[in-house]
């Protein structure tokens, strides 16, 4: 057990026939946040989260009966919901006598929480559930999946069944207790570190783990078989936020399916993390608790917090990117504009950046007509300082984006020998530099924020289609493709996806603005006309690319060649590079 830090006040509260060790932090005049731990933890699992919350809230924790410094009644009946609820009520009464508390539960603490908000709604202002389902909901969810045994339903039910192996094991008499007493605690701590990335620290796993583990088995025996056999009809009126770790080894993320029927005021916060998310991501968990409490109490939220709350909310008309912030560069026309609109149509809040402010503003105007609020900025992506400013502005005014689309680019065609150093600088500054700045600045924000995200870089079919006509352009786009692949490998562990989109011939204004080097102005104009007509004839619009970009983000696709000729080139570049080399010698300029 942790020696209580100086700011933590500990005392004992009399529960239902037990003494409960209660720990308080922060100003009692502030809203009370009550953190309930799971099995086989103690209140100390919350140390980091509690410390983060203590500045803004009155934070209360306690050791559940059977754990830590609280009493350990014997006999499984003493661990039934009736007793647990009486304990919880006693702690709430003792620490927040005149106010409703904001309940937060992890694992078994969350299972208790669902029971509490369903049976004692008047005591709670909000509930945040982490990795512990309502047993009533879980039972109904499993039955629904088994009575409608579609392959998907069966797969999900079996997956949860596999995750619940220990529940069955805990029904075995005596054996679990013996194992805990015989020294399961040490391998458990090791497994926690290896499997979940939870480093042992003072207080967690607790020194009392062998006893906690053995006593807590009563929770499973007293409550699970009965409740799973005959689930009750529940209705939760309290605003509920469910933090859903998508890599949870014990609770399937799919268990949230249909939860809105149980709790109409529901917000979901998926996070790419394991079961012990309060230990692995305390900052994120604390921030989400703060945002949920802030929303419920009507506290002042920053623009980013308000957006996060909108994003989490589950409503019947919810769109897939509701409340997501999507930054698109080169959003004034073509693929950039179409992408901004495609995300806006799906509920996203769009930041449209372009060198041409009027064009970006028009995109924002159109995006606003389709979805959430949209803003326009003038940015030269090739200018490192300007990009720094832009990234900071976005962070301060809108928060960390969920999706960044590095789209801005310029075309350049002609013989290599005709490209001047200035031509090279320009094409590399914009096409490669712009992507590098966008990735660098926004990936840093996403990593720091710890909630994942997605970066889309617009490469080109030219990245894998050598051509004597496009040396600079193709080189810049090939660099973007490889940069995306490298970055994807680096950021995968942080839940940040990276996709490279490789469009073929798409009818946009790029043919109108491309530079054809080594040509007289008239010849250049002719080339532009000819390219524009050819691209228009090809007739593949930017909307098609935008749809592919949305799909790439949703499915976290690594490389997406768009248009049939791009897909063909992609395959040929793998199976027959020689053919691609031969084709590269044709002058298509």
């Amino acid at each position, binding site marked *: 057990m942790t020696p209580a830090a100086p700011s933590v006040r500990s005392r004992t509260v009399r529960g239902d026939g037990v003494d409960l060790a209660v720990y308080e932090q922060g100003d009692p005049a502030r809203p009370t946040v009550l953190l309930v731990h799971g099995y086989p933890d103690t209140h100390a699992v919350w140390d980091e989260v509690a410390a983060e919350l203590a500045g803004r809230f009155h934070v209360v924790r306690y050791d559940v009966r059977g754990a830590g410094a609280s009493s350990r009644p014997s006999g499984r009946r003493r661990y039934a919901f009736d007793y647990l609820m009486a304990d919880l009520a006693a702690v709430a009464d003792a620490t927040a006598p005149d106010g409703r508390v904001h309940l937060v539960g992890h694992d078994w603490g969350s299972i208790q929480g669902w029971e509490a908000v369903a049976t004692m709604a008047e005591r709670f202002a909000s509930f945040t559930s982490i990795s512990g389902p309502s047993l009533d909901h879980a039972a109904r969810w499993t039955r629904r999946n088994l009575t409608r045994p579609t392959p998907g339903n069966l797969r999900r039910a079996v997956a949860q069944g596999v995750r619940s192996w220990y529940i069955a094991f805990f029904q075995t008499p005596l054996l679990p207790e013996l194992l805990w007493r015989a020294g399961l605690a040490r391998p458990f701590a090791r497994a926690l570190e290896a499997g979940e990335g939870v480093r042992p620290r003072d207080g967690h796993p607790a020194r009392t783990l062998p006893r906690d583990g053995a006593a807590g088995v009563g929770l499973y025996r007293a409550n699970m078989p009965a409740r799973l056999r005959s689930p009750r009809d529940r209705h939760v009126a309290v605003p509920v936020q469910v933090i859903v770790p998508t890599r949870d080894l014990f609770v399937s993320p799919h268990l949230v399916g249909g939860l809105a029927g149980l709790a109409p005021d529901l917000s979901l916060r998926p996070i790419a993390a394991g079961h012990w998310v309060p230990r692995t991501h305390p900052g994120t968990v604390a921030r989400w608790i703060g945002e949920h409490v802030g929303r419920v109490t009507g506290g002042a939220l920053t623009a980013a917090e308000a957006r996060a709350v909108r994003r989490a909310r589950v409503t019947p008309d919810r769109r897939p990117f509701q409340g997501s912030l999507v930054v698109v560069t080169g959003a004034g026309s073509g693929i950039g504009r179409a992408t901004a609109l495609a995300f806006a149509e799906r509920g996203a809040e769009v930041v449209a950046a372009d060198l041409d402010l009027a064009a970006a503003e*028009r*995109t924002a105007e159109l995006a606003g007509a389709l979805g959430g609020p949209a803003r326009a900025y003038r940015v030269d992506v090739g200018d490192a300082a300007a990009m720094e400013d832009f990234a900071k502005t976005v962070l301060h005014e809108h928060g960390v984006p969920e999706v960044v689309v590095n789209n801005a680019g310029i075309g350049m065609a002609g013989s290599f020998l005709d490209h001047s150093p200035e031509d090279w600088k320009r094409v590399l500054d914009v096409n490669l530099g712009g992507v590098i700045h966008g990735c660098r600045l926004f990936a840093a924000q996403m990593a720091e924020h710890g909630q994942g995200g997605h970066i889309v870089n617009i490469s080109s079919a030219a990245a894998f289609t050598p051509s004597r006509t496009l040396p600079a352009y193709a080189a810049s786009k090939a660099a973007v493709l490889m940069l995306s692949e490298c970055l994807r490998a680096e950021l995968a562990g942080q839940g940040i996806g990276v996709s490279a989109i490789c469009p073929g011939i798409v009818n946009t204004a790029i043919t109108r603005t491309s530079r054809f080097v080594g040509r007289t102005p008239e010849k250049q104009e002719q080339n532009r006309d000819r390219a524009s007509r050819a691209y228009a004839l090809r007739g593949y619009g930017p*909307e098609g690319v935008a749809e592919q970009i949305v799909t790439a983000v949703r499915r976290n696709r690594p490389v997406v060649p768009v248009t049939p000729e791009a897909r063909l080139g992609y395959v040929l570049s793998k199976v027959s590079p020689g053919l691609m080399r031969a084709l590269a010698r044709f002058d298509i300029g």
Partner: protein
Amino acid sequence: MSNKVALARVDRAAELERFREIQRLSYACAEAVAATLEPGVTEREACRRMRKWLLARGVDDWLHTPFAWFGDRSAFTGFRVPTQFLPSGATLEEGMPYILDMAPVKDGHSADIGYGGVLGENRAWTRVDTDLAEYRTLILDLVRERRTFADVYAEVDALIARHGYSSRHAKYPGRVIGHQVGVISSRLPKRVGFPFGVRFLQTIGRELVTERVAGRSPLWNGTRHSDHPPTPGLWAVEPHLGFRGVGVKFEELLVVTEDDAFWLDDDLPHVRRWADRKEAQA
């Protein structure tokens, strides 16, 4: 019968008044039928209502029978073959845009109108409809400058690109933004041939031939056949904008004289709607 008689005599006020009457009647029909549209009504049902309303008021032939396009069909989403323009069983839902398009003939005088609306609220529709007002001004200004029809067409396309919309009139047969209308007189029966009136087809066919001889076309599009200054006469002009499943258009008669042009009528539902919106914003 000479060409001049078959088409409208735009220098005769009385004749223009006849056209104005039938155009007003058509718009009255559009407004009356639009007021009856409710969730669940099909395009076919809407077209039936338009036909019935107009026939009860003396309409005796059609340039084409009424069209109605609901939802993303108003932007011709996924249209590949001409039969998809015909009224379908698509139903109208809350928040959906719709377009009613009719071209009745009464005593030989015809109108051809398009009326865009939305059932309830749709912000995207409001955006597009607000911008559509610019096209009415742009087209009139350019025609007054005697720019060639092909030029006007290209300028409209450029504005569509700046706005971030797509040209939906490019989906019409011949990619036309407009076509000539006039007095329909023929010995052919007043029959409808899927969905164009037989007499209209005869007139437009004859005009295609006679105008081609003069280096002009009764159809107004972006091709070289339209690369001529505005032809005097009555032109049904129908810019049609598309934006992600929302289509909005107007269609009304433009009077082109030897040296000037004007809209046959400025007191029309969409013109009033734009004025009201502008006033509300001011």
